[in-house]
C-alpha cells in the first residue's frame, strides 16, 4: 500500500551547511498493517511523516500510495490526497479550540472530496467512548479525551493510512495504553494501515512490527556535512 524508495531529504542549517536528514532506500507498509517507527529525538521521524503526508517534499526519491506516485504532484494535489487518503494524529492533539469535539471530527471530513455522512462524526466519537461529550469544546475535555477526539478526527475521512506522531507523549501513563489500544482497534475495524512514531519502548512493544529509523535511514549513520557553495 505504501512504498518508499530511495528517499532523500536534507535541510540547510543556519550556518549554511546542508544536513542530510533522511536517506531511506526502502520502506513498505501493507494494507491494514500496523507499524511502529522508533528513533531518537531529532532523528527525522516527524520529517518522514511530513514527507509521506505531503506537508513537505523530499529532495528526491519515490513515495507510492496504492500505486500512485505522490512526489510528482503539486502542493494542492498533495493536499487533496492527504485529505482523502490519510489521517494524522499529532503529538499535542492540535484540536481547534473554537470547535466542539464533533466539529473537530467533522473538520477531518471537510476538505476531502468524498462525501461522507455527517453521522460518521457521531459514530466515531461513540467508538472512542465520547458519545456524551460531542458538544464539548477541547477546553472542557480531559487530556485523554482530547486525544481520543484527535484519533476520531484522523479517521473521519476513512483514510487508507493513519500517521501518528508520538500520540501519547502528552498523555498520562494510565491513559497511554488505552489510547494505543483504541488506535489499533479502530484502525483494525476500519482496515486502516498505521505508521506510528514513538521513542517509547513500552508502546513499541504493543506492535508486531517495529522499525528503527537508525536502521532504515542511512543518513543517521553517516551525516554528510556539506558547506553550501
Amino acid at each position, binding site marked *: 500500500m505504501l512504498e518508499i524508495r530511495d528517499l532523500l531529504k536534507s535541510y540547510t542549517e543556519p550556518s549554511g551547511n546542508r544536513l542530510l536528514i533522511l536517506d531511506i532506500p526502502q520502506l513498505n507498509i501493507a494494507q491494514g498493517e500496523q507499524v511502529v517507527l522508533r528513533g531518537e529525538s531529532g532523528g527525522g521521524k516527524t*520529517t518522514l511523516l*511530513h514527507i509521506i*503526508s505531503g*506537508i*513537505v517534499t523530499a529532495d528526491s526519491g519515490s513515495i507510492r500510495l496504492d500505486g500512485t506516485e505522490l512526489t510528482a504532484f503539486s*502542493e*494542492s494535489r498533495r*493536499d*487533496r490526497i*492527504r*485529505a*482523502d487518503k*490519510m489521517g*494524522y494524529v*499529532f503529538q499535542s492533539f*492540535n484540536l*481547534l*479550540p*473554537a*470547535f466542539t469535539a464533533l*466539529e473537530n471530527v*467533522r*473538520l*477531518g*471530513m*471537510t*476538505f*476531502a472530496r468524498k462525501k461522507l455522512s455527517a453521522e460518521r462524526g457521531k459514530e466515531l466519537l461513540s467508538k472512542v467512548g465520547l458519545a456524551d461529550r460531542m458538544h464539548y469544546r477541547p477546553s472542557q475535555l480531559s487530556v485523554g479525551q482530547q486525544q481520543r477526539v484527535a484519533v476520531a*478526527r484522523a479517521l473521519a*475521512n476513512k483514510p487508507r493510512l493513519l500517521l501518528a506522531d508520538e500520540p501519547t507523549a502528552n498523555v498520562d501513563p494510565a491513559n497511554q495504553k488505552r489510547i494505543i489500544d483504541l488506535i489499533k482497534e479502530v484502525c483494525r475495524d476500519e482496515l486502516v494501515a498505521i505508521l506510528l512514531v514513538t521513542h517509547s519502548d513500552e508502546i513499541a512493544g504493543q506492535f508486531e512490527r517495529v522499525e528503527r529509523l537508525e536502521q532504515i535511514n542511512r543518513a543517521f549513520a553517516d551525516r554528510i556535512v556539506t558547506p553550501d557553495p
Partner: protein
Amino acid sequence: MNLFSIAIRNLTYRKLPTALTMLSMALGVALVVLVLTISGVIERTFERTSNVGYNLIVGAKGSDIQLTFNTVFFLSQPVENVKYSYYMEYLPGDQRQKEYQRIGGDLPEPDRNGLYSFFMKGGFAIPLCMGDYVGSFRCIGTTPDYFNLLKHGDDLDYRFSKGRNFVDYSDDNGYFEAVVGSQVAYEMNLDIGSEIFASHGAAGGAQHNDGFRVVGILEPTGTPNDRGAFINIEGFYLLEGHVAPDRDERSGTEVKGTANAPERDTRLSKTRLPIDRREVTAILVKLEGPRGIGLQQSVNKTAFAQAVSPISVISGLLVFFVSPIKWALLAITSLVCLVSAISILVGIYNSMSERKRDIAVMRALGASRDHITSIILVESVLIAVGGGAIGWIAGHAVGPLSNTWTERATGVRINFFSINSVQEPFIVPGLIVIGILAGIIPALSAYRTSVAKSL
C-alpha cells in the same frame, strides 16, 4: 462543515474583538446612511418645492436668487416692488377691465390687452405682497387664486384640513380673512376663528391694528407654504404703510403725505385701495405651452423688472451647493468606513500569529492554501457586511424616530425601509469590496504559513 461555517465559528470564538471591529464598521455605515438619508430628504424637499405650480416669478430688477428665495421659500427680504398696474399687463383686455371695475383707481386704457397677455394664453398670473410677519412666520398677501389655481408637489391641489380658502370679500369678515399653513397653525396654536395680526417689516415688529380671521388651515404640503400665513391682498392693502406713495420724478424719493389709506367707517367697509396706490412684491406666472422663454426675455429687457424661472434657480442651488456638500460629507463618512476597514485588517492580521497552529492543523487535515485564504477572506467580509448591516439598521432607524419633526419641517416622511438616495444600494457591494481588500493582507499571511514549522 464548510468554509463559511468555519469562518463564522472563528469569529464567534473571538467575540469581543469581532464585536468591536463590527461596531466601528457599523458606525461608519450608519454615518453614510444618515448623510444619504438627509441629503435624500433635502433633495426631495427641493424637488417638491420646485414643483411650485408656476413657471416664472416676475419682480423688481435685482438678484434672481433673492427673488426666488423670498417668493418660494419665504426667506431673505423682498426685492423692491413693482406697480399693481404692471401686474395688470399680464391680463387680457376683459380681465383687465374686470379688475379695474372691481378695484377702481387711475388706470389708463383699462380695456386693452396687457402688454404680456399674448404670452399668457391659457395661463394665469397671481400677485403677491410680502414683507410682513405673523409671529415668526412670513405673511403673504395674495388672492384666492393662490390656492384655487396653483398646484404643488406631484401636481396636487391645495387642500384644507380645516375650513376653507379665503374669499375676495366676506360678509362676516370683509377683506380680513386668512389661511395659514399647517406648521403655523401647530406652532401658534391657531384654529378656525383665531385672529392673527401682521407685524410690519420684521418678526416681532409693530403689529398692525387690523387682525385677520383664520378661515382655513392647509393640509401639510411639505413645501414652505406650511410655514406661511396668507392674507387677503385686499385687506393687506388696507393696513398702514402698505399704500404706494407718490415719488419725485427726478430723485424717486417718496412725496410725504401721499401714502394715505382710504377712509373706511367700519371693518366690513367695501372700500378698496385704488389700483394706482398699489404695489406688488412678485407676480407668479403660469404659462401654457413653450412661451416662457419669450416672456422671460421680454421682461428681462425692461429696466425695472425681471422674470426668473424658480426651477432653474432651485436646481442651480442643488447643483452648486447641496450636491457638493453631500459629496463632501459622503467623502468624510467614507473615510470613517476606511478607518474601520483598516481596523478589520489590523484585527485579523494580529490574530494570525495566534492562529498559525490552527491554520497548520487545517492544512495537515488536507485544507489547501486556497481553502485557508478563502476562510480568512470570508471572515473579513462577514465582519464588514455584518457591521454594515448593523450600521444600516441604526442609520435607517434614525429616520422614523425623527419623523415627528422631519415630516412637520419638510413634509417628507421617512420610512424604515425607504431608500433615500440612488447611492444607497451601492453600500452592500462596497462593504463586500472593503471586506475583501481588508482581508487580503491577513489572507496572504495565512497563505504563507509554514505547516511543518507551525506544527
